[in-house]
């Protein structure tokens, strides 16, 4: 059973607001990731981290930022939300050994109005 949690599950927010999507895992995994998925489309990697104080941009450009101050916590922040940010955001984690699968959280469905 994967222990990775995302909050909130659903968020409807007005344009221009600052938001932070939370992601925490209790598996002691070093690697953490954020994916973005629109309905009927593939998941796109937007951020990843190898460990504390490590953050990298993913394949899909995103205006969001992330931080990794603690191993278990990998929050994603949007300084000024726009309707184009409406999407599902999925957090995942894995250990450092290559070939092991990533475990996903339940996702945050963000709607910016």
């Amino acid at each position, binding site marked *: 059973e994967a222990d*990775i949690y995302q909050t909130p599950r659903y968020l409807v927010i007005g344009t221009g607001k600052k938001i932070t999507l939370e992601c925490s895992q209790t598996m002691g995994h070093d690697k953490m990731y954020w994916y973005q998925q629109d309905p009927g489309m593939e998941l796109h990697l937007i951020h990843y981290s190898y460990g504390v104080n490590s953050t990298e941009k993913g394949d899909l450009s995103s205006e969001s930022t992330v931080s990794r101050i603690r191993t278990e916590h990998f929050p994603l922040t949007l300084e000024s939300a726009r309707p184009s940010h409406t999407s599902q955001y*999925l957090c995942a984690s*894995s250990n450092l050994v290559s070939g092991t699968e990533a475990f996903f959280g339940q996702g945050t*469905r963000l709607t910016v109005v």
Partner: protein
Amino acid sequence: DQQVKQNSPSLSVQEGRISILNCDYTNSMFDYFLWYKKYPAEGPTFLISISSIKDKNEDGRFTVFLNKSAKHLSLHIVPSQPGDSAVYFCAASIGGSNYKLTFGKGTLLTVNP
């Protein structure tokens, strides 16, 4: 340009029969492949994986076949159960490095009782 393609958006099968989900890839550098299952409003759940040094991997009712020359993999579910109804994503990576997972768009499987 999509590097991982799942050309069937949906598939419907009868309970007890075999479900075959297909995935094609274009990047010959991919050497590790995974299948994820996703229910609505949930995060993807890892199902099964295969390394390019193998052509088959089996786990209970789930078997993944890899044809490297054709750049094709398939997931077989036997026997199919109504609880298998979900979206199935194919993903691939290079060097078994699971942060750089490239996903397909998914196939919606419906198993009818």
